[in-house]
């Protein structure tokens, strides 16, 4: 017993040393640095398009890199690829399981992927020769639900799972290239860095981790949240990480300073954050809450500057297009809307 106690003390000691070391780098706060910046003013977004076709709650959506097409996954057991300009359905893909948690669009536009309670990541080829969309691969090895997936290319995809791990897959062979283990709770969300060298994961152990994809290592771990991290994303310049948690706050962590810069919170917000998307400039943060509300934050000043779809709490997921021109929301009533 004595040894355990010793080790525990050593661990606490090391944690304190890390915190102290981080503090010595903190020469200012983000609020001080941003004090001179002009206020954003109230943000009010308008619906430009409504995408109709699903028959049940939208669980997830992801924009294609062309900022025109997007894919959505619904409780109705379908993946739909939409042209957001014409509102036409480009593809409607029936899934084996209705319990889909995530979907992703490959940067090339050739593939989409999804997964959920089936513990698998299914890859679909949108550009098959005969025009039909078929399952190209079923990546099976996780022992827990598939919470999130993101393509690196047409040959590699990263997944996060309720089995606490993240995995880099080789799509051609359907095998695991790297298993990223370390989280002590279900991994809920992941984001890939703009240069595709790193990815971040948020988990039910209240931490976010930065992983080096090629070196297969966890480079940094960020704590501070008081509950599960449900949503995570890179700040647009790739130098910071944004997290959303069941503790009803979002946090901004700087990678180079290795510490938290800001917490986005308000005493009137008591509901957990389950999705998030920064604007292209990074000035605004859209945070989707579990009560189907979306709050819009000024990221520099940590002030709320608006809400999205104010009356009807309906939003179940959000995503901002890569050209920053539009935001897409999925609702519990089966519709998707495009806003700007």
């Amino acid at each position, binding site marked *: 017993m004595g040894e355990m106690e010793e080790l525990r003390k050593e661990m606490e000691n090391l944690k304190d040393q890390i915190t102290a070391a981080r503090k010595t780098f903190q020469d200012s706060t983000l609020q001080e640095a941003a004090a001179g910046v002009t206020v954003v003013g109230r943000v009010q977004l308008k619906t430009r398009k409504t995408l109709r076709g699903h028959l049940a709650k939208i669980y997830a959506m992801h924009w294609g890199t062309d900022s025109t097409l997007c894919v959505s996954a619904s409780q109705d057991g379908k993946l739909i690829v939409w042209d957001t300009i014409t509102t036409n359905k480009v593809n409607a893909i029936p899934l084996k399981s209705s319990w889909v948690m995530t979907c992703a669009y490959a940067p090339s536009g050739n593939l989409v992927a999804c997964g959920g309670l089936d513990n698998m990541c299914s890859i679909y080829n949108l550009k098959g020769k005969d025009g039909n969309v078929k399952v190209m691969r079923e990546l099976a090895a996780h022992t827990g639900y598939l919470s999130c997936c993101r393509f690196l290319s047409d040959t590699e995809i990263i997944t996060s799972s309720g089995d606490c791990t993240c995995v880099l897959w080789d799509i051609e062979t359907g095998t695991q290239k790297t298993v990223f283990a370390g989280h002590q709770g279900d991994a809920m969300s992941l984001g890939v860095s703009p240069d595709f060298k790193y990815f971040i994961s948020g*988990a039910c152990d209240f931490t976010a981790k930065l992983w080096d994809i090629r070196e297969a290592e966890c480079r940094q771990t960020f704590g501070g949240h008081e509950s599960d991290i449900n949503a995570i994303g890179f700040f647009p310049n790739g130098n910071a990480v944004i997290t959303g948690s069941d503790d009803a706050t979002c946090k901004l962590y700087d990678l180079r300073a290795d510490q938290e810069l800001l917490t986005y919170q308000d005493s009137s917000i008591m509901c957990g954050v*389950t999705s998030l998307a920064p604007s292209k400039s990074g000035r605004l943060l859209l945070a989707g809450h579990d009560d189907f509300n979306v709050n819009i934050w000024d990221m520099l000043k940590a002030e709320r500057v608006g*809400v999205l779809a104010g009356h*009807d709490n309906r939003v179940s997921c959000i995503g901002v297009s890569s050209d920053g021109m539009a935001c897409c929301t999925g609702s519990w009533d089966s519709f998707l809307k495009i806003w700007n």
Partner: protein
Amino acid sequence: MMSGQEEEELPVNHTGPKGVINDWRRFKLDSLDPTVPQSKRELLRQMSSPREDDKERLNRKMSAQEYEMIQEEDEGSLKRYRTQSMQEMHERLSFGPAFEEVKELESGDAFLEVIEKEHQMTLVIVHIYQHGVKGCEQLNSCLDCLALEYPSIRFCRMDAVATGAVERFTPEVLPALLVYKAGESLAHFLAVTKHFNEDFFATDVEGFLNEYGLLPKKEFTAWADDEDEGGNVE
């Protein structure tokens, strides 16, 4: 968080992966043979709840037994579940007082009272007007119509001069529409008529508010199950 209509003891998520888990659990519970009573339901509930002394389990959202229960489901039950879920959500959000007409707010205090005291789910839309300012009379008529069509919304109007609001709302920014819910400002539209033509009607105001996601659906229509939604549409 949803208003106190949750039957479950533990807080549950409705969105994201945990939302899917929760929906699946509810589906499983609902599809249990109702003649098999409490014991089986209790078992399912126990499997979902971590024991207090099991700290490691707290970080895991699904139990091993639950993973084993995942299987191919009957499409009929799934369809029924989906429609029922959406219907319930719609009813939850429609719950609240109903109003029939636009209320005249006589003072600044009355304004604060309506904003702070109305039911959490009730949308409050306040029209600040001034006699003689262009568009105000027209907007008032439009809101009288909308008040009948959207009984869940508390429409109000305030004479800027009579209530003293004119100090902050000068004629150039009138008519103004302020939208509140649960004490919070959702939207501010100053000189709102600049968004409309010279002649505008209730439908124009309705369309405008809809664009900002500020109006509820008038009624819930259950979907006819549309199987030919499947397949590729190029």
